[in-house]
């Protein structure tokens, strides 16, 4: 599936057991330090430094901690976590075990989105394998190394990709994000400290621990170390999962995947931003274009109003619905754009919608609501004539 002449780390060669063995050779705090030194950022979208999160989690005192692998890959146009679980499951499982060792957790849960239920049997078999063939043969000092992994299913709720929503969902509740603080590393699954990382983060960790932070630091940019998987879809000749060094130019990516006649690109999924030709020379890295996992390409035949409505319909349905700016805000953005389309509202109403976006970005309760304005503002900005003056 991977076709690029890419820098392979995450999708590269890996000897099962090499990561966790390297981890167990050192102290837990050394593992945490290694992840901090690597400069790895969480691959779930927010880009928070992973090592820091691990340190916070390691510092929490508790009789029980849980590692959660966020496999609720719901961002439209994203399928790289599925790819990893299908093709490199051992790295992911091992990464979870490394995290468990580092922060002092002996249980891991993979939260797999409900739509991927068909992957369950193979995943569970892989877990059995790694427990039998790798974990059971390891020791921490004189004690046997133990790390249990279970798979738990979602049931169709995009918002459960948000870490607190995911935890609530596991806790047997509606997947509604909570107020922070306290954070999941303080009070998460079963109200105990919980470390949530993305599938890709765990896979990357296995390599970092195997080969060291120094090696990892050679890839990427100053503020975005390493590589990243991208799910590329839409109007391209070669859709698929690609691994690129962070800092890669969008234009190079588009060329590689055979994007022609490109009108715009949705970078970072629906919750990311829309860019056109003038931004193609920007790079995919922290602080530049959002390095989320999804890149959707639209060619010149595509109607951007339809695209925008599709995106807003998605958010209007997938908001958890608890906070006002997200629940009603997404609905009003969609309704507003439809009213402008039909001529029921004048173009001046667009300014009100932009004001609404400012409030949503400033006051929504979680990342979902905070990011809805991004696609709205970028698409309407890029295609004012096409969308507002048709």
């Amino acid at each position, binding site marked *: 599936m991977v076709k690029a002449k890419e820098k392979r780390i995450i999708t590269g060669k890996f000897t099962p057991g090499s990561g966790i063995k390297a981890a167990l050779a050192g102290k837990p705090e050394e593992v945490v330090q290694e992840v901090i030194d690597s400069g790895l950022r969480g691959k779930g979208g927010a880009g928070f430094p992973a090592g820091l999160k691990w340190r916070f989690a390691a510092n929490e005192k508790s009789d029980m901690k849980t590692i959660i692998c966020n496999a609720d890959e719901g961002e439209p146009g994203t399928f790289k976590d599925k790819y990893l679980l299908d093709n490199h499951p051992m790295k992911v499982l091992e990464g979870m075990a490394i995290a468990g060792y580092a922060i002092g957790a002996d249980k891991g849960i993979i939260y797999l989105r409900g739509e991927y239920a068909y992957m369950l049997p193979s995943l569970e078999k892989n877990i059995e394998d790694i427990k039998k063939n790798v974990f059971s043969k390891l020791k921490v000092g004189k004690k046997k190394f133990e790390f249990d992994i279970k798979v738990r299913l979602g049931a169709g709720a995009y918002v459960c990709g948000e870490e607190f929503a995911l935890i609530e969902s596991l806790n047997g509740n509606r997947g509604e994000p909570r107020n922070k603080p306290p954070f999941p590393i303080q009070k998460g699954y079963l109200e105990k400290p919980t470390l949530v990382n993305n599938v890709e983060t765990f896979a990357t960790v296995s390599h970092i621990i195997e080969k060291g932070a120094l090696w990892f630091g050679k890839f990427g940019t100053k503020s975005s170390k390493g590589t990243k998987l991208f799910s590329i879809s839409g109007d391209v000749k070669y859709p698929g999962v690609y691994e690129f060094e962070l800092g890669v130019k969008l234009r190079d990516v588009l060329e590689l995947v055979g994007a022609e006649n490109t009108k715009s690109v949705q970078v970072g999924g629906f919750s990311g931003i829309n860019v056109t030709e003038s931004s193609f020379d920007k790079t995919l890295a922290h602080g530049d274009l959002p390095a989320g996992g999804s890149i959707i390409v639209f060619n010149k035949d595509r109607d951007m109003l339809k695209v925008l409505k599709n995106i807003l319909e998605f958010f209007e349905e997938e*908001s958890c619905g608890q*906070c006002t700016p997200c629940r009603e805000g997404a609905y*009003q953005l969609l309704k507003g754009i439809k009213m402008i389309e039909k001529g029921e509202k004048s173009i001046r109403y667009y300014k009100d919608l932009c004001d609404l976006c*400012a409030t949503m970005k*400033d006051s929504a309760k979680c990342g979902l609501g905070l990011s809805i304005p991004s696609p709205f503002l970028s698409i309407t900005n890029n295609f004012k004539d096409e969308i507002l003056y048709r």
Partner: protein
Amino acid sequence: MSEMIKVNIDGIEVEVESGATVLSACEKAGVKVPVLCHHPDLNVAGVCRVCMVEIEGMGNLQASCAYPVTQPLTVKTKTNRVRKARRMNLDLVLAEHYGDCYTCPRNGNCELRTLADEYGVDKFKFPHVDKPRYAKDTKSFSIIRDQDKCIHCKRCIRTCIDMQKVNVYETANKGHDVEIQVALNKSIADVVCINCGQCVNRCPTGALWTQDVSDQVWEDIENPDLFVIMQTAPSPRAAIGEEFGYPPGTRVTKKLNAAMRRAGFDKVLDTNFAADLTIMEEGTELLERLHKVIVKKDKSVKIPMFTSCSPGWVKFIEHYYPDHLDHLSTCKSPQQMYGAVIKTYYAEKIGIDPSKIRTVALMPCSAKKYECNRPEMNASGYRDVDYGLTTREMAMMLKEAGLHLADMPTEEFDPVLGEGSGAGMIFGATGGVMEAAIRTVYELVTGRPVPFERLNITPVRGMEAIKEASLKLEKVKKEYKWLEGVELKIAVAHGTANAKILMDKLVDGTLDYHFIEVMACPGGCLGGGGQPIPTTPEIRKARANAIYQEDEEIEIRKSHENPLIQKLYKEFLGKPGSHKSHELLHTHYTKRGQYFVKD
């Protein structure tokens, strides 16, 4: 005490305990922050996003109700950015709220409308709901729900699930389809609702209300063939003033008597009298139970005995602990006892055919509406109580009739069955029934008044969640020899969540008391679901003070010393626990369980 942390609010420095919210720091600094989903009685939700503030060092605005202070903070509450966000979120709430304010029961007392006014809302920024989308749920005798007014603040959910542990409401669906629903979209009447009305008291809009019977009451007042008798409970008297602009805790009993007579009620009676009657019956029942358990070792008789005057509590136990109904006192509540006595003994006294009598009970309670409609409540041969009227409805009736309390003279209750003792009065506060009962039971058993200064049994007073006390019975009267040396253990719980703690212990077999008072509502009846809105811990305390003051001022402070009660037994009932008492004043309960029956 935990660490104190400095917070700077708009330049004003205050100190709050670590973990306190930014909102509470703002309150301390005297800075008002608008809220919709926040309520002082409830858990944090942080969903309406109206209380947003700027916190230095944070990228986004923060909900002050949900942000805990754990380090020194600098907060700004009135920047343009803050005001714009608040106003915008308010505009969004207004867009999804069906605002037909003229016809709304909360017209004039709506938190959303007040905020719209304070924030200068002069137009709908967004297309808004302008036609009702839902049918109102009016099937329950007590609670009415109008989902069109709902703004998804989840106060009702937090009240019902967290505060009362009743579990009627929950959020359903997601996205813009989110609704606050009863399980499977049933009617409130068909589920575990105990009618406590606490959700009504906390709803910021008119989405929740009580079944209003005032029109029927007006009809009956105007009907020349009918004789309409009002009985008033102590709690409305300590609260109805709030509806007329008096501060909470203002006692207006005697002005209210005058107003109700002018409104056309033929007699105005004091429910405290029936409360005294309840004490006589319940006290006797307690002693009988104790006798059977201690002397006769009768395993079929259950101790502890729970009070049964709170209809919300009664329905709670019927739903959640149907196998433990034997622990409930069989006594009817004062309201129902009074109804039964009015349509029998009193009807005869005043020479009026009971079929022509309508009894109306002014209660702080929404569950009383359900209680008086229970099919079994017809011991007099008629509906014992025809209407349960809430404090709010009474206030509305008086206003409608142009009767303002400030303009009223003071008037006494009607005689014959008129007055109650101070013991009856304190029924309105949590611990009150227990205190009244102990004043009587102790004296019956020992021949001496309770060993408390001025009869005030302070351990059972106050707003603590669960209160306990014990009282050693010594030098008892001859006929109670079997109680000599027994330590009478009692407990008091208010709010069904607290009652649940006791019930779970009962189920586990670890509950060691003889007598337990439970009131479904926080603070007891004075915090009832029919009381003026808003309700807060401070308001409830003020109402409790009013009630205890009135008790101290009443000459007779023990139920058994009320001469009218003695007369009633002598002329009509015989003695407490007599056959006739059982016929008229006692009842039975229904095992309901937690699930609705499929039609």
